[in-house]
Every structure is written in structure tokens, then in C-alpha cells.
């Protein structure tokens, strides 16, 4: 069963570093799994941690948030807030029983195309191992 399971990953990337890093991976033609879909935000600090929970609820099997390295944030401090908030979220999710392999956070700078590929591969692999997310997934009701 898990051989044919393809996890569905939603990623939130900050415009100035991680999104640019992912663009660089593209221009460098670095290949990685197609399971990941990116939502662009201006700063990792924009990511409301409840997005992670919402993504899982709406059909993602794994979620990734990526921002600038500490000290490099285009908006000075956004990634520090992201770090604290998402750290707390990870603890909460794990405590409630959501597999920690489903949520990852990374620092990827605009020059780290290869790191982006590695981050994606890890996120996809971990989500694949964790299997399809059932938990509190929203069910479609066919009346």
C-alpha cells in the first residue's frame, strides 16, 4: 500500500530567501519530488501556525515552512517570530498525537538551491513514511 502512496505536501515559503532558493533550484535544474506545492508569503513570520493545522485538515499529508536564516530576514525579525510560534506548534501537534514527521521547518537562503532539494526530499520521505494523514482530516460528505 505504502509503495503507491504519494504524500501531498503544502509548503509556505518566504519571498526573499526560501522562495528565491527554490527558484534557484529551478534554474539549476535540480530535480526533486513533485509532491510539494508552494504557497508564497512575503515572510516566514507571516505564517500563522494554524495554517499548518488547517493544511493537514484540508488534505495535506505533510507541511513545510521555510524562511531566511536567523539574522538574515528581509524584514529583520520575522523569522524569529516564526521560529518561536512554529516551535510551539510542533510541540502541540506532537503531544496531540500528530506524527512529527508531518511538519518541518527549514532555513533556506536565496543561494541554497541544493539545500532546498534536500529539504523537499526529506519532507516528502518523512510524510511518505508517516502514511496518509487520517487524524482529523476533513471528510467530503457525499449527500
Amino acid at each position, binding site marked *: 500500500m505504502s509503495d503507491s502512496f504519494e504524500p501531498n505536501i503544502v509548503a509556505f515559503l518566504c519571498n526573499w530567501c526560501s522562495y528565491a532558493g527554490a527558484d534557484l*533550484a*529551478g534554474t539549476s535544474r535540480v530535480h*526533486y519530488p513533485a509532491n510539494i506545492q508552494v504557497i508564497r508569503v*512575503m515572510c516566514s513570520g*507571516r505564517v500563522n501556525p494554524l495554517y499548518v493545522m488547517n493544511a493537514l485538515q484540508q488534505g495535506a499529508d505533510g507541511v513545510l515552512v521555510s524562511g531566511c536564516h536567523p539574522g538574515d530576514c528581509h524584514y*529583520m525579525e520575522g523569522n524569529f517570530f*516564526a521560529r518561536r510560534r512554529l516551535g510551539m506548534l510542533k510541540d502541540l501537534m506532537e503531544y496531540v498525537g500528530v506524527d512529527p514527521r508531518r511538519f518541518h521547518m527549514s532555513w533556506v537562503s536565496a543561494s541554497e538551491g541544493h539545500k532546498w532539494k534536500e529539504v523537499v526530499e526529506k519532507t516528502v520521505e518523512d510524510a511518505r513514511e508517516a502514511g496518509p494523514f487520517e487524524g482529523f482530516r*476533513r471528510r*467530503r460528505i457525499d449527500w
Partner: protein
Amino acid sequence: MTEKPKVGVYVCHCGINISATVDVETVADFALKLPNVEVARTYSYMCSDPGQALIKNDIKEHGLNRVIVASCSPRMHEPTFRKAIQEAGINPYYLEMANIREHCSWVHEDREEATAKSKKLVAAAVAKVRLLEALESKEVDAEPAALVIGAGIAGIQAALDIADAGFKVYLVEKTPSVGGRMAQLDKTFPTLDCSACILTPKMVDCASHPNIELLSYSEVEEIGGFIGNFDVKVRKKARYVDFDKCTGCGDCAAACRVKDRFPSEFDMGMGKRSAIYLPFPQAVPAKYTIDPESCLFLTKGKCGKGPKCEEVCQAGAINFDQQDEIVEFKVGAVIVATGFDPFDASRKPEYGYSDYPNVITGMEMERLVSASGPTGGKVKVFNGEEEIEPKEVAFIKCVGSRDASVGNEYCSRVCCMYVAKQAHLLRDKLPDANIRVYYMDVRAFGKGFEEFYDRVRRENVRYIRGNPSEIFKRGKKLVVKVEDTLTATPLEDEVDLVVLGVGLEPRADMRQTMDLLRLSQSPDRFFLEAHPKLRPVDTATDGVFLAGCCQGPKDIPDTVAQAKGAASSAMIPLARGKVMISAQVATVDESTCRGCGFCVNICPYTAIELVTVNRFGHEVEVARVNEALCKGCGSCSAGCLSDSIQPKSFRDRQILPQIAALGVVR
């Protein structure tokens, strides 16, 4: 928001960059089935003229009011397509792009997977674009004036350039005279120009330029506002000397009851001054100042039978009733040119700087060899017993730089060259002296630097590779304990004079300047530039620029170049007369805001404040965003528990549908 969204979706082939991997026709067909999509097309190069024309045409013919372009990264062409749709008559913010090239066709191999992913990305883009708002970029007027903080060579140069261009400049200097560190130097490397000779004309210029208002012996107290509209408050400290009456004759300093009793700051404490003083002979403005901490009358309330300075001043310029004065003005741009402090060598106790009078720093050496210095340019040192002309001299480099133990891991960039220069100057003055330089590396990277270093070595200045471990006294001599690493020989060289090549450190009062302008520090504690490579004179705050050593150690040519760069950047808003404020700023729904102040705490640009509003008779506090300061990062909204503050174009209600579109509901 009452207008029904009519979306046009354009899927780009990008030649074969996208279409080789993604089945673009299938994606367009899929898009047509999405809610509110009226038109869905593909084209070989959407960014080209015909590609853009396709979009503009559809907007007119089909009455489209939202556009999706599924192509390359928005970081590439978002401005292109925004402009295109604006030209066709719809608000430029009604655009959303789906990145199916850098994030899809270029990184995936399987055609089926890449096509399926492209469909989802387009679905997410459509979900968002339907909920976007029309936004207007605002323009505000810019004040055609600039503030330059610090009047060393960087500040002076920046001020002169801006003033020459025709704009008003307020040049604020903390000390009584302009000139900064460069005025303290004797000769400059590698040209051996006399520092004062090349600097003083610029000093005079900046004081007399019709467009420059020089506020010397003054400090900036407060800066509010934003680019184009900074509100500045400066405190002009009382000199207790009437500026307009003083002729600079110097009779007061000669007559002062505590004449020559205080260490002169300009001479690095090696010379003396009176309580009323001119920092140095070529000071600009050439007006005397009374130091309120040294003056008998100001500290004790009485100076003999009456202050001597007042007695002898023929111009009647002494005025002990003078008060500090606050001046306020508006500027459009600010340049920070506050300079550096030399490293305090007493923090390396092993070198005996605090113990021995003949261990001096590079800055002190400058004053020693200066003709206008405390010894009239004669190199004489006190070895504990008598004053002598040194026969054995040691220079030690990298003092306080490249040294994690004192917290400065960086290289100070100028010390290799200034030590070479000072070694040369000593060679001139002491032809028979044995001059050695102890080094870890020699960095002679600039124009003329390597040639100069060669010349100095040919002048019989010995370079010994080794970092001395300590300096101690032996009889009348100082012993430098070091290992010559190239020959692996331990040495104990006996010298008469040790010159410590101290590095450059961020000023002790950095914090005050940072608080004024919300500046950040780099890891080396100098001010942080907006981007280390592409924006070395900008800061994260629009309209605030950096020039000179406050941004990082550098020599005079680099300082002047950076000052000119900062002046040029600062002049952009001044010349345009207007400033654009980004439209994608945060906004508060005041009806749901509970005034908790989380967003105020979070905002790195202090763009949010709590204001009192009247809610049906009750006074409540809600957050309000200063749109000119807001950068649209959205950190505030992720911390808002009631979702009241949201950045436009990246609202929760615009992002959550994207998440839903990317999910798979089973």
C-alpha cells in the same frame, strides 16, 4: 467587492521550458472548468509583446477583471504583468501568478506528475485571485533636504555632494569641530598625502556652503517619520561662547586659570588643553568651546575673582548664561556617518598598554608624528626613567582584530597599511632605528597598497611573522616575546617603543544611534546594511543610508566612495520630490481589534501604534498602521489572535483558499 470576478488564465509554454514537461493545453482546459474562470489560453511566451497583448485583448473583449499567469517565478515577471493589466485598465493588484517553471517544469521529470501539480498550482492561484482587492500605491511629497549625522570625511563628503546638487543639508556633528578621525591622522596611505591638507579644504567648504547648515557641538535627539518626511530634533549644546562674536583668537585659552590641565581628546590624551579650548588649530568652525566638566566657573560656581576668559576676551564672546538649544526640522533622507572608535588596547593586558608609557596605539602614534601634535612631530618616548628617541621600535598588528577573545573576529582592513605607513614615517624621522613589524598576515589589497608595502620593506623595515604573546619590562627596555613562525625561533626582542596596531571598533554610543533610527547591527556589531553585496549603503529603513566606518572598517578612499554612493541614493527621493508607498501594507479591522498590542510589539518597523477610538460611546484602544512605515511582512498578522490585522494581498482569507485548493479532500 461586489463585482463578480471574471478570471482569465494564461498558461505559458515558455518556448519548451515549460511545455516540454508540463502539458500546458491540459492545464488550460482544467483551468476553464474552475469557478469564475471565463477564459483560459496558452501561448508560447506570455511575457513577450504579443503575449501581453493577448491578455489585454481578453480583458477588453471578455470584461476580465482578474488575471492568472501560470509561467515563471513571480520574482521574475510579476511587475511585467502588473503593468500589462494596468495598461488594459484593471487594477494591477488583481494579478496572481502560478510558478510552473522554476518550481515545476524545471525540477520534475515525470510529465504526468508535473502536469497534475501545475493544475493544482493554477487552482490555488484562481482560489486566491478571486479574493484579491484593488489596491492603490500612494504617493507622498518628499522634503528636498537631507540630514547627515557625523561630520568626519564620510559625512562631509556626503553633505558636499548633496549640497552641490542643490538640496539643503543639515550636517550634525557631536564634537566642537568637523573632521573626525581623519583630522587626527598625520599622513595617509599609500600616497602619503598630508591628511589635514586634503581634509581642511573640504572642512571649510562644508561650513561655508550655502546649502549646508552645519550644526556642530550638537546631537540628534529624536527622528520620527518616514522616507521623504523625517521629523528631526537636534540639541545644540551650549558652548558658553557666543558663536557670532568669537574670532578664534585664543586669548581665552591662554588666560584660563586651569590652562593646559586637561587631556586633549584630539591628541588621544597625550596633549593638554584648557577648560576653554579649540580641539585643534585647523578646527572648523574656529570657535572656542567651554567644557562644562573642566571649567571652574561651571563646576564650582566661581573662578577666582572672575572668569579670566571673560576678562581677556576683546570680542565679549563669553556667555555663561547660554543654554542648550533645540532645533527641529524636516528632511527627506538621512545619512548615518558616525564613524568608529579605535580598539581600547587596555583590553589586551598582555601588551602592557596600561602599564608602560612607551606602549602606544596606532592613533597615538599619529599624534606623535604629527607636526601639530603634542610633541611637535618629534618622536620621543618616556621609558620609565627618561625621555629618549627610540632606537628599537616594534609594531604589533591585529591588536583587537581577528581576535575572538575580545569579541572582534573581523579584520579591521586598514591596520596593515597604516602600520606600514607609520613604519615608513618613523624611518623618515629615525633613519637609524631598528623597526620591526610583527604580523600574522599582510593585507595590501588596494590600489597602490602592494607597491607601498614593498617600498616600506625596502626601507629596511623588518617584517617578522608572529603574534607576540606578551610585553614586559627589563631594565630600561621593553621585551616583546614572540615566535618567529617562519623560522620557528622564539624571540625576546628588546625595544624602546611598541606601537599597537589597534583595529576599528563600532562606537560605544552605537545603541543611541540605533534607537534613533531602528538600525540593526551585523554580527560584527557595525551597522547592518540592507544587502551586503547589492545594497551596501542602504539600510532596512527606506530613506536611511550608511556611509563610512560605521558600516564596517574601511580606509579613506572606500569611505569617500561609499559617502558618494550614499549621497547619490539619498538624493533619489529628494530629486523626485515624491515617494511611493507600497500598497501591500497591513490594515486593521478596528471593529474586531481588541487592542492587546501584540502587533505593536512585533512590528520591526514600529509602524503600528495603539490609538483611542470611540466605539458607541466607549473609549477603546485599537491598533492602527502607519502605511508609510509598513513593509507588508505580515509578522503582525500571524501573531494577532483575533485576525484583525492583515497584510493586503496576503490576508488569511486569501491564503486559506489556496491551502484548500492544494489539499485533497477524501
